[in-house]
């Protein structure tokens, strides 16, 4: 009975928190400067890309270094559709078609690739995914009639409609953040349900998964395909937010930046994906105001600090603080929990003190 009450309380607390977050997110664009809205919009775009990567890497435990390829394909699918004459004639529904294609095409490509790649393990699957952006950039340049070649293409269909009375930055904010919120809700239910549990077992031990009747191959293909679709969705949002794409969007370096954002935010965590998006967008913005030549080095320092101090990513910060506080309270407080990541008590102490 007591546990039931606790559950209800926690559910209610969670519901209240969700409502508060939703309310803040709805009100923010109405009172903020355009740049604030544009920044949150871009954070939402990359949070969705990181979320997809988190499903395949954080939850299903497969190394994917090609997520940006799916973002790029989604962006091109959206941009090419929205620019086309027939889609322009269709107006709003043309954008909807662009949305569907931006999710479907990367999904199909992801499915086909993972059907072959999921048979491999560890480094081999990483190698296959590395190939994607490496093939993608010259391909996007080569198909210049479709993609506009190395100069890139713009698709401007995300100005605020007049009936809304909103500015462009507010309209783009609402479009992108709403779609991103739905994507996060879908991902939340996915990883909480039976698929999430299956991913966890496949990640932990494939032999055990097989013995339980869970096919590691099928679930790897599934995780990879879903990640590709989230990547494609992020590509659509990319077009909604920036209205331009070019072959450089797909470059391998950006793919690694997404992997880094996943790790910094916290692998295997929904909230970590948001933090990863915040890291991806805010760090270059902040270094621009302090010292624009320091982008790469600041990113490197953050990655190292996170890996050494918070191996679970920024999302594990509250836990780390709580642990440090408990230890600070000494013998009066509750006993400290067993160290999760530390290899020795001394290591653990050093981490908490730093």
């Amino acid at each position, binding site marked *: 009975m007591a546990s039931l009450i606790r559950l209800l309380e926690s559910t209610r607390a969670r519901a209240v928190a969700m409502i508060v977050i939703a309310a803040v997110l709805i009100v923010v664009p109405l*009172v903020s400067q355009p740049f604030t809205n544009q920044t949150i919009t871009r954070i939402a775009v990359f949070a969705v890309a990181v979320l997809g990567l988190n499903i395949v890497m954080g939850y299903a435990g497969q190394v994917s270094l090609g997520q940006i390829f799916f973002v790029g394909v989604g962006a091109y699918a959206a941009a090419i559709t929205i620019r086309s004459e027939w889609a322009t004639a269709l107006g709003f529904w043309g954008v909807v078609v662009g949305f569907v294609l931006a999710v479907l095409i990367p999904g199909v490509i992801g499915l086909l690739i993972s059907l072959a790649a999921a048979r491999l393990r560890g480094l081999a699957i990483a190698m296959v995914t590395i190939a994607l952006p490496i093939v993608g950039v010259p391909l996007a340049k080569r198909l210049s009639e479709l993609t506009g070649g190395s*100069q890139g293409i713009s698709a401007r269909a995300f100005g605020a409609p007049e009936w809304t009375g909103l500015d462009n930055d507010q309209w783009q904010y609402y479009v992108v953040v709403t779609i991103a919120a739905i994507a996060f809700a879908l991902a939340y239910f996915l990883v909480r349900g039976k698929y999430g549990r299956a991913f966890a077992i496949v990640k932990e031990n494939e032999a055990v998964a097989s013995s339980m009747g869970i096919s590691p191959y099928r679930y790897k293909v599934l995780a990879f395909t879903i990640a590709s679709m989230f990547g494609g969705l992020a590509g659509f949002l*990319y077009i909604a937010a920036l209205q331009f794409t070019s072959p450089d969007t797909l470059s391998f370096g*950006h793919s690694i930046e997404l992997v880094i954002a996943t790790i910094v935010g916290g692998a295997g965590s929904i909230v970590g994906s948001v933090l990863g998006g915040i890291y991806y967008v805010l760090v270059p913005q902040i270094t621009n105001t302090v010292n*624009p030549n320091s982008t790469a080095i600041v990113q490197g320092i953050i990655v190292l600090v996170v890996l050494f101090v918070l191996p679970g990513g920024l999302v594990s910060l509250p836990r780390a603080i709580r642990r440090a506080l408990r230890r600070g309270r000494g013998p009066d407080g509750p006993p400290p929990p067993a160290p999760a990541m530390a290899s020795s008590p001394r290591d653990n102490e050093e981490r908490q003190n730093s």
Partner: protein
Amino acid sequence: MSTLKRRAMMLTAIAGVAAIALTGCGRGGGTTPDETGGAAAASPGITDDSLLFGISTPLTGATAGPGNCTADGAIAYFETKNAEGGIEFGDGKTRTIEIKKYDDEYNPEKSAANFQQMVADGVFAAGIGLGTPTNRAWREAAIEEGVPQVLVMTGDPLFNDRTESPLQLGLVPIYQQEGAAFGEVLAADSEPHKVAILYQNDDYGLGYVEGFKEAIEGADNIEIVGELSYEPSAPSLEGQITELSATDADVLFHAVSVVPRAIENMQKAQALGWLPSWFLPSNTASPGGVLTPGGAVKADGSLVYPGIYAVAFSQAAASPAFQESPEGQAYLAAVEEYTDNDGISFPHCVWSWIGAQILEQAFMAMEEPTRESFMDALMSIEGFEAQFLLPGGAINTTTDGLPAVQDVVLQSFNGKGYADAESFGG
């Protein structure tokens, strides 16, 4: 995940969102030009004593070398002017110029974000940055916001199309101009020539070929005997060189942007015993970077090939003549004092310095502190002999379809460096 942890996370999220919202500190807080009234209400980014100019360019990553130069040349120039008290504008007021640089890592997404940040920072105008996709990424946004995007360093003709790009202007010659400069000299020659063309299959290579073909149109003495393309990622062009050598052409139009391929091609042609005259684009014509490793110079200093031609518009900071001239010394001293650059390794530093001089001309001519007045002034510069242009070159911003630098000079390699080539073989 424990309930406690979940709550902590929720709180973090809420706090984060609230913090971001608070930094916004209210919408529409700033004064817009309309509110202050008056015909000559100042545009954002300009006051009675200063002007803010933004440069978004690759400062880190693979293109950081030339990228930093695109910012540092202008910074050195304007810091020198600021130290002298500033620049007197056309409205009679003296202003200092503040350059704010933004790192885009040669990533269009970052440059588009940088533009949003520049608007938030209140720049008066922006530009000078390097890169085609990175500048294209915010071209339309700049037009929508009414922010001039000027003197960008890209060979993309779109930025010089006055109808498509009313607030834009390119600085450096477009690819077509370079190709045309060679075509004109070749067409004017009295001898008949057989030309082989090798080009990169993108806007770069196609631009060169387009300019060349337009220039030789109707010239009876020129016959194109072979034309092959390649993809920028191709690991070797030996097949193309072998095939073109069979045409026995006496001129090779070599629109190749990849330095290792240019070196290999130069070696391969010799190995095949094919010795044409070469036309090289300005970015793969470096004596030390391409010609020497390509084996184009014999041990006695003479050339293996009958001629090697390239196009230039600015003086090279590495040349002794540049370093001995008073302007050159002032340039090097300013770069040394105000930046971490050496000002020599990449020509973009000199180009950026030239761009800064063009901006200064526009500032001195603009009669009102507005972006409209600035664009009018910038687009009316004619016959301006900026420092470090090649002799006879002048800045002209009044021709639709062409960037600020319109005069390019064909040069031929003499075994040590480049010298102006009046005629083919001359």
